[in-house]
């Protein structure tokens, strides 16, 4: 696995702004494991949500353009953001299986594309290709029984036939990867439940309800930290804990990290650029206590 060729990588807009710590830590993890990520040149926004209207051609042109330029770089495209992954993977699936739409989209963006690129999420790459064994060997600061709640959310898992990622009812990839890093993943049933997503835009109350359901279960399971791979999940779960603490007397806030932040630190990264200070529930006391960041 050492010194592999650099892998074409799509960071996406959020990882350049609000979730810059996710981008930086993802690069750290892959560099530490000997397969550095190479940012796709000249990329554009994926559109953020997969278009669900029947006549969705125009909305597909953005992600299609990304797929075309990635195909010029190689046969695979690594994606970190769960939302971008969902959009790119489903667009790729559609272009592969619907010849008529593929032709129209290709004509519009004046490119040729036959759908033979593989869109892969970095979690899948780490688990299924680089392998848990390799992660275990490369550990510099094992997580030593850290009780972590692996939170998958919706976008990695569904629709299962299109995103093809783990068992949607009982996902294990993230748990197994964290266990390889020495953590003790906690069991809780809400790992694939919705965090509230974009509901916050329309109904703060409904979004809070959704996040609360997930967080209460995580809290009841005794987790010390939550990890995710979706900037929106991270935002919802992190941001709403103050409100939940006001409603529920016994609720104990839990920091919410990107899984690569935790993994990057375990692999010896110094945490520079992880923007840990921007999290609403401050993860630094826990990370310091565990010797993962410098005191």
């Amino acid at each position, binding site marked *: 696995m050492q010194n592999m060729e650099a892998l074409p990588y799509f960071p996406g807009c959020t990882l350049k702004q609000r979730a810059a710590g996710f981008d930086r830590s993802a690069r750290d993890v892959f560099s530490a494991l000997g397969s550095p990520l190479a940012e796709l040149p000249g990329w554009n926004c994926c559109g953020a949500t997969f278009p669900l209207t029947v006549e969705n051609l125009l909305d597909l042109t953005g992600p299609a353009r990304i797929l075309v330029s990635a195909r010029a770089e190689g046969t695979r495209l690594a994606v970190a953001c769960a939302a971008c992954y969902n959009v790119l993977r489903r667009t790729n699936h559609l272009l592969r299986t619907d010849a008529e739409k593929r032709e129209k989209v290709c004509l519009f963006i004046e490119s040729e594309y036959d759908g033979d690129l593989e869109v892969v999420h970095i979690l899948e790459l780490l688990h299924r290709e680089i392998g848990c064994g390799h992660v275990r060997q490369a550990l510099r600061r094992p997580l030593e029984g850290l009780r972590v709640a692996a939170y998958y959310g919706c976008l990695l898992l569904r629709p299962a036939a299109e995103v093809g990622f783990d068992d949607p009812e009982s996902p294990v990839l993230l748990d197994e990867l964290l266990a390889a890093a020495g953590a003790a993943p906690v069991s809780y*049933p809400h790992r694939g439940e919705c965090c509230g997503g974009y509901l916050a835009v329309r109904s703060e109350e409904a979004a809070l309800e959704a996040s609360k359901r997930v967080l209460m279960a995580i809290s009841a399971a005794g987790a010390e930290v939550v990890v995710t791979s979706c900037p929106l999940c991270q935002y919802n779960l992190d941001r709403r804990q103050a409100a939940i603490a006001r409603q529920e007397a016994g609720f104990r806030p839990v920091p919410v990290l990107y899984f690569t932040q935790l993994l990057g630190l375990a692999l010896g990264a110094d945490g520079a650029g992880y923007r840990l200070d921007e999290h609403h529930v401050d993860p630094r006391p826990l990370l310091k206590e565990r010797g993962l960041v410098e005191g």
Partner: protein
Amino acid sequence: MGADRDREGQLPVGQGREACAGTGRRIGVFICHCGSNIAGSVDVRRAAETVRGLRGVACATDYGYMCSDPGQALIRQSIAEQGLDGIVVAACSPSMHEATFRRAAEAAGLNPYRVEIANIREQCSWVHQEDREKATQKAIALIASLVEKVRGDDPLEPLGTPVTRRLLVIGGGIAGMTVALEVADAGYEVILVERGAELGGRLRQIRETYAALTPLAAPLQTLIERVREHPRIRVLLGSEVESASGYVGSFTVTVRPAAGANAPGGYRSEADPAGGTQHEVGAIVVATGYELIPLSRLGEYGGGRVADVVDALEFERLLAQEVPRRPSDGRVPRRVAFVQCAGSRDPEHGVPYCSKVCCLYTAKQALLYRQRVPDGEAVVFVIDVRTGGRRYEEFVQRAMEEGHVLYLRGKVAKVFRQGDQVIVWGVDTLAGRNVEVAADLVVLAAAVVPSAGAAELGRRLRATTDELGFFREAHPKLRPVESLTAGIFLAGAAQAPKDIAETVSQAEAAAAKVLGLFSRPELVQEPTVATVLQELCAGCGLCVSACPYEARSLNARLRVAEVNAALCQGCGACVVACPNKACVVRNWRPEQTLAMVGAVLGEVQ
């Protein structure tokens, strides 16, 4: 064409319009107008005039509707009056009326295998409506071709094959036992093959049945004893069908010990342990029943992961105790949630169809639970309740009113364990809100699927199963108990989900079909099958591999190929394969075919 039709309408019954000219072999040609279906694009009168001059044609006439009673009378009378020894009816597809015209000819004393159909409707008038001239020419060519065929047709007699009056029943549940008893009581031998260790099937797992809460154990035991003690029924437990060959009336079935039988500590197989025994039977009934979809496939309902999520058959077992106790800790559950359509009507996770029996047995189980645990609560999640059947709706109402079972209309989203309870997330679509039920036990009405190995058994029997493994019936409305393979019949849930009453009905219907078959002195079959000219056959065996019906074999002693006429469908694949032209299908001899082609090409006067 209106004028033509009017004239035809006035035609006296049984009298051809034209006088017949008699020379050589006496063939009559009868051209149908089919109203304007044929006459609209084919000049039928010109066709009649033209073919009248063909070699061997004694008379040719046209008529409005040849299949009508007057049309058939015209044919019969022409045969009698003209002394015809062969006829061509130019009309619609032979799949429509070949049998009609053959019967009419036979009634007039003509051998029915000297009746041929020239299809000038589907293959001519309907597809050439734009060009009357060419359509007429094509119709004439088709008729001329069939005239050539009739010239070479031999008079044939239908083939008779004997019937072995013994039945094989596969499956010892209520369906198989019912068929076996009916047929054995009527005086025939029955071999009943059951792969399990006992007779009784799923009914052994069910104590009381809807809708009258009838206890089943005693009548089931009586039935099992009757089967076991019947002098004409031979029960082979721990056995399964390894292979089957032959055809209706004459199957050879090999039965071997079932996988799992005879294992150390397991049950004993009653089949010959030395690799299986052969049985000669005349008919087979498939009654292999059903099982429930594995809980592990119902992951979103906690299936396979949460101990206190059970399927309905397991709950049936729990209910058999004085008070039901849940698997995880033996506590009496105070609140039980029933989830209907667990895997049914759910193409994404389970099966697309309705399992049919769950609405009623869930009502039964909820009611029985409430009787056993009077202070317990029963909540049923349903998409809707389907209660077609005698007193079924009343029974569900009884569960709601007398049993105080709470029905919530909406699908369940998720089932998971929390502490020592099982949480059910669902939706109440009538109230329009999400609901969460904390239950002590969850019962899944898991989808009914075919028994394991059903599709494989179907392949061994050459009886087709559908994409889900249920055996296919010959016709969904008109032949519901026959498989697509003659002599193989279906009973019970092997064909589709059914309740006990329906299963017994179908089993008795299957028995009636078997008895009908056994009551015939012999089976009659079309004689237009392949034959071998032994003096030309080199015994190369190409015909054996070419035959899609396993009707061909090599006679090792004579070193020639043979035909099993009962299996042959007359398809002609062997004729094409044979390098020596030793294979011939009756009334499709090569010289006939060549003469037909010649006629189409206008080489015959």
